[in-house]
């Protein structure tokens, strides 16, 4: 008897299901019988109770970061947090300087925010990561100038799962007097965070990648030394003026509970996911011409991003329809968007290959991994048997040296 549910979900870095324990708490904050009050209502118990729940959640988020709860601002998600942090800090410090430093493999929420600042007249340096996805510390240090106000580097990369050395980067920023912003959307429950030890000034977070609900996030804003921001959303002055708008009690409670669980169960869950990820990798590592993208050591346990040479992306996805994974091509392909993250790692020279991101999570099982291993092996062998490029590779012909008739 098989307990497999097809399709198998292996896209936990895209989003996670809400943990049952989280959903239960959220459900208690909605109806007339529950805590539906406006946390900003000062004149009655409905408001007071809701406020208490919001503050309890704020404490859970702060605990995970090693922060003070007064340093946590609720937002709608990591994208809004990135916008508030980078634009807010850049605008506030405009008189000091108009230069920002970030990395080419950042999430679009950071890159596009920087693009907008460029349109406003700011100058942005986009650093190339090393081939393994990590930031070169010397290069980073050299990029920080006297007029640099903000540096933004993500903690865990969403595509390749590599973990940046925040402590080293933070120390450089502190020494140079640059505000250090970190997009940590992928981190909670996967890698330990200590904002003081890491000298982080601003940190973007969201709930839905840590078994919490979508539509809620937070921004950590350091109090000592104080980091000041220009608000991006104006109104009733909620969240000490940083972010106006009625607090969504059920969402906040969900994020708080999700972070409490993430903090408590991280060690155990990581050990389990490491084993599963290794099982997946062991299962397919004998396939020829496959490449792991990103450093395998400095990496969160549930992520595996692999390029398969001489296999076309769309047909690979067709063969893997039983598993929900994220795909791209390491280079240009007619049917799949090339991944800018993989290209930034310098894999653009790969003419014919496709990449798959497998991300495992709380509900992944050994059975699912074994099924996936079989599926991938069969699909890759089948497509290579069908591929004239694979024949050419086997004959020792370099397909980059062939003059192709482009159509």
């Amino acid at each position, binding site marked *: 008897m098989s307990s497999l549910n097809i399709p198998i979900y292996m896209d936990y870095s895209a989003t996670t299901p809400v943990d049952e324990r989280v959903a239960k708490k959220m459900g208690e904050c909605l109806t007339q019988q529950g805590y539906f009050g406006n946390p900003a209502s000062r004149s009655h118990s409905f408001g007071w109770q809701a406020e208490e729940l919001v503050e309890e959640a704020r404490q859970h988020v702060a605990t995970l970061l090693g922060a003070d709860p007064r340093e946590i601002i609720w937002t709608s998600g990591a994208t809004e947090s990135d916008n508030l942090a980078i634009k807010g800090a850049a605008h506030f410090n405009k008189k000091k300087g108009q230069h920002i430093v970030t990395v080419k493999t950042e999430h679009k929420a950071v890159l596009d925010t920087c693009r907008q600042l460029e349109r406003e007249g700011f100058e942005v340096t986009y650093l190339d990561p090393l081939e393994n996805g990590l930031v070169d510390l010397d290069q980073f240090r050299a990029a920080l100038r006297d007029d640099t106000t903000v540096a933004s580097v993500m903690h865990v990369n969403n595509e390749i799962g590599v973990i940046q050395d925040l402590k080293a980067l933070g120390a450089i920023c502190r020494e140079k007097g640059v505000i250090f912003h970190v997009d940590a959307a992928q981190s909670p429950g996967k890698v330990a965070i200590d904002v003081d030890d890491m000298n982080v000034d601003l940190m973007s977070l969201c709930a839905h990648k840590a078994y919490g609900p979508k539509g809620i996030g937070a921004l950590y804003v350091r109090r000592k030394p104080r980091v000041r921001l220009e608000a991006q959303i104006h109104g009733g002055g909620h969240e000490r003026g940083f972010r106006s708008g009625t607090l969504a009690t059920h969402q906040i409670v969900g994020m708080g509970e999700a972070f409490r669980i993430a903090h408590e169960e991280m060690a155990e869950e990581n050990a389990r996911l490491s084993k599963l990820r290794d099982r997946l990798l062991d299962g397919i590592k004998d396939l020829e011409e496959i490449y792991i993208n990103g450093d395998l050591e400095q990496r969160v346990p549930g992520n595996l991003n692999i390029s398969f040479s*001489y296999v*076309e*992306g*769309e*047909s690979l996805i*067709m063969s893997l329809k039983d598993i929900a994974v994220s795909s791209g091509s390491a*280079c*240009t*392909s*007619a*049917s799949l968007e090339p991944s800018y993250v993989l290209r930034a790692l310098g894999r653009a020279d790969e*003419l*014919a290959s496709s990449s798959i991101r497998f991300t495992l999570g709380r509900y992944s099982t050994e059975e699912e991994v074994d099924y996936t291993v079989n599926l991938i092996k069969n699909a890759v062998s089948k*497509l290579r*048997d*069908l*591929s*004239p*490029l*694979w*024949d050419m590779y086997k004959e020792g012909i370099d*397909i980059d040296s062939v003059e*192709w*008739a*482009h*159509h």
Partner: protein
Amino acid sequence: MAYSDKVLDHYENPRNVGVLDKDDPSVGTGMVGAPACGDVMRLQIKVGDDGRIEDAKFKTYGCGSAIASSSLVTEMVKGKTLEEVEAIKNKDISEELALPPVKIHCSVLAEDAIAAAIADLKSKQTAKAS
């Protein structure tokens, strides 16, 4: 993307996958497309003494429609004369497979592969005659 049953059938069970001896004077080889465009098709045809195609093989790097188009072509050309094969147009392929508009180029590529294979065969025969 929703593929037709015929595309899925050819994709799941591709016909005539393989390689013919490209140095055999009765074999014509056509390789079209480019890795950077996402499709490379190799079609090979072998003509018998009666002037009809007695065998056809293909290998394709590409999406499901490209694989299905080339698989179908190997079935279509068998038993036909070169003149009859030259008359096969991309529309015949795309209609048979019910290809969606964004995948019409796969049938065009298959037509190009036929033309390239025939051209290779004819150049071999001319070389032999001279």
